[in-house]
């Protein structure tokens, strides 16, 4: 009973301050939205998130026009053609970020397709946009190869026919053009296609949700980061109680040390639990994230996350001697765990060794669990492992915190 009373006292102290609501709720919501926007593309229209690529057509042939048309049908790129722009203008647009890339179709582009001696193409892009540039390069290459394929088809067809029958120069040209047109028409409906499907997504709606929801990563990422930030206030309460000797006083009432620690721990865990729950509900309602597709799994994951963060708060309160150091000791793990654990950017961009090391942080496990729930619709059968690991972290941090805790 005393444990509960102590926990309630702590929670009352925390919730008396509007800063608690700000740190625990408003900031993570704000940053979730910000990070979501960052990853949502340029939003041409409401739904068009394709990468913008400016095209400068110096060739002005049917082939170059055909290439531009093919790019317009791309799922990855959205071509931007402005007759008033020079190459310099396009480069500037890339430089200032209005375009993701610019492509110059050089003079002789169409002819090179006909002869088979393809001209290399240069894509101008910000060299730090690694992931976007990969996508741009792959798509331009695919389209270029397809276009070449069409002209190659026309050439081969023409050459084959010439082995059968004679054609005048004009007839050859007409034949070639006809081949090209036929090839282009066939390419609109090729015999074999490749399509993506996703683990956990059974309907088209679910597939779309995965492909277009920019918050699948940012929402759990910010939850994980700000769960730690929320510990600042809780750790400060511990520090203040120690300094004011209220903790020593508590011992004189016959309340056991472990009881006192448990009471404080319970408060911290409860606060984080409520925080994560509110953020999950927010994500479910306003960001179209399926946090509660498997409610049991989600609630258990939230509980385990709250327990590990509560234990971390206890450890911080044990180590910090003043309010200032409580802030430092809270922010350092926040940045390290968030950065290393993949809260800011997906761990898949780092190597396997990094991913291995990252899983020594609780954030990486939180991210795994939440992303499995959101992207895969996973349930307890998948998420049990992150839950168990998080509980292990909670036990470790609690033990360390209890061991290091001084009441004076």
């Amino acid at each position, binding site marked *: 009973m005393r444990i509960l009373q102590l926990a309630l006292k702590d929670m009352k102290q925390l919730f008396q301050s509007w800063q608690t609501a700000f740190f625990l709720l408003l900031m993570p919501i704000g940053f979730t939205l910000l990070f979501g926007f960052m990853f949502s593309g340029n939003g041409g229209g409401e739904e068009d998130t394709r990468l913008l690529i400016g095209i400068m057509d110096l060739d002005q042939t049917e082939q170059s026009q055909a290439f531009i048309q093919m790019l317009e049908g791309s799922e990855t790129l959205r071509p931007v053609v402005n007759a008033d722009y020079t190459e310099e203008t396009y480069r500037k647009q890339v430089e200032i970020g209005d375009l993701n890339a610019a492509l110059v179709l050089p003079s002789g582009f169409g002819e090179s397709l006909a002869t088979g001696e393809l001209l290399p193409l240069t894509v101008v*892009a910000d060299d730090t946009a690694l992931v976007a540039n990969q996508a741009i390069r792959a798509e331009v290459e*695919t389209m270029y190869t397809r276009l070449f*394929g069409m002209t190659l088809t026309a050439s081969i067809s023409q050459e*084959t026919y010439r082995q059968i029958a004679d054609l005048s120069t004009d007839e050859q040209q007409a034949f070639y053009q006809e081949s090209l047109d036929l090839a282009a028409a066939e390419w609109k409906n090729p015999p074999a296609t*490749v399509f993506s499907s996703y683990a956990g997504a059974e309907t088209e709606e679910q597939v779309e949700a995965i492909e277009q929801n920019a918050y699948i990563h940012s929402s759990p990422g910010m939850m994980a980061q700000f769960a730690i930030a929320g510990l600042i206030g809780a750790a400060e309460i511990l520090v203040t109680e120690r300094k004011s000797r209220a903790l020593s006083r508590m011992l004189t009432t016959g309340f056991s040390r472990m009881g006192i620690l448990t009471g404080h721990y319970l408060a911290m865990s409860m606060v984080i639990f409520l925080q994560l729950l509110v953020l999950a509900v927010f994500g479910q309602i306003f960001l179209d994230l399926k946090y509660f597709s498997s409610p049991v799994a989600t609630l258990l994951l939230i509980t385990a996350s709250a327990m590990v963060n509560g234990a971390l708060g206890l450890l911080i309160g044990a180590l910090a001697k003043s309010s200032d150091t409580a802030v*430092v000791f809270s922010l350092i793990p926040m940045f390290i765990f968030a*950065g290393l654990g993949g809260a800011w950017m997906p761990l898949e961009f780092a190597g396997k060794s990094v991913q291995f090391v990252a899983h020594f942080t609780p954030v990486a496990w939180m991210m795994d669990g939440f992303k499995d729930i959101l992207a895969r619709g996973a349930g307890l059968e998948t998420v049990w492992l992150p839950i168990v690991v998080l509980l292990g972290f909670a036990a470790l941090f609690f033990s360390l915190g209890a061991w290091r805790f001084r009441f004076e």
Partner: protein
Amino acid sequence: MKALDIAIKDMKQAFRSLFAIAFMFVIPILITGLFAFIFGSGGEDTEISFEPIAVQATNQDTGELGAIMLQIWGSDALSDLIILTVVEDEASARQAVDDKQAEAAILIPANFTETLFTTSSHAEVEIYQDPTLTLGPGIVKSLVTQFVDTMNGSHITVKVANLQAAERGQTLTPEQSEALSMAYYTTISGGAQQGSLISLESPGGEQQQANAGVKSILGFIMGGMMIFYAYFTGAYASNTILTEQENGTLERMFGTATPPAVIITGKLLAAALMIFVQLVILTAFGRLVFGIKWGALGLLLVFILVTTVGAAAFGMFAISLAKDRKQAGVIMGAGLTVTGMLGMAGTFMLSSPTPNSTIDTLTLLVPQGWANRALLAIMEGLSPERIWLSVLGLIVYSAVLAALGFFRFQKRFA
């Protein structure tokens, strides 16, 4: 002179404070080190290397093409990119992805070869992928598409040639059709083997090296962290006004006939000196330890000076909004985190497959955004106008904030 005395005293106190040292130096270096670990050290030899992608595949194809495709992907030539495991049935392949044993599964349908050799029916190759990943499955899809496109091209070539021949009352023999198909396949494959036709170039005109992006990213991250924590230092330094107010030493200072303007100037000077030292040490550290190329030295110095003033000014303004240390704590914790992270949004977007240029504009709402933009421009060697525009923007922003902060404190202590 008194202002300098106050500044020196404040600096002495700051450099004896664990809190201040942690925020000024330890955390930015730690975080940069973290990203150096994640992405590689950023030095000249840094290579960005992706681990081979674990892929499962099933081949239900009744013909040969499916097997050929799998042979290609399972070959040594692609072993650095893909680790391919062929399984008997689709369910196992899907399960492997569900269990995260593989990033993607390639499911070749039964009618794959048949479709490509006849003129009817349609075949779909399915890439069943882990939805929490984008990079690996994206590469897999790209490879599969490349192969399928080659096959499609062969098929279409044969079809077009036959159509055209038929229109002219001619018929191609099977051998001729096969020759067409081979001719197409050989030419396309030969071209693919010569390597990519697409090269990337920076807006400034430099060919992008394979790893240029990585080296730049680390620089941008450290730069972003430097700016982030420089602004913290500015607020921390100005916060000493409130600390001294609560401790009684501010009142004591007023009792010594030291005008408020001198005290505020001293505090601003303290902030500027601390930030300057911080930025110099961090840039030197970045260069020597992480191999970060900050750009032209002269421009870097300009950046350091302007950011010093900007961060000091912002700190003074931010803290002038607080009545006491508790409020200042909120401003420092929340306000600076929000503005700092918004200012760094451009850096965070580096890993986005679909970056949003509106966010890039939004970063200009905060002075940290201008500082980040200026540093990025200097590091990337962008046009002088772009560099100086960013620098000028920061100067103007800083001047306004400095004036506002100074005025507010002056009024409070008049």
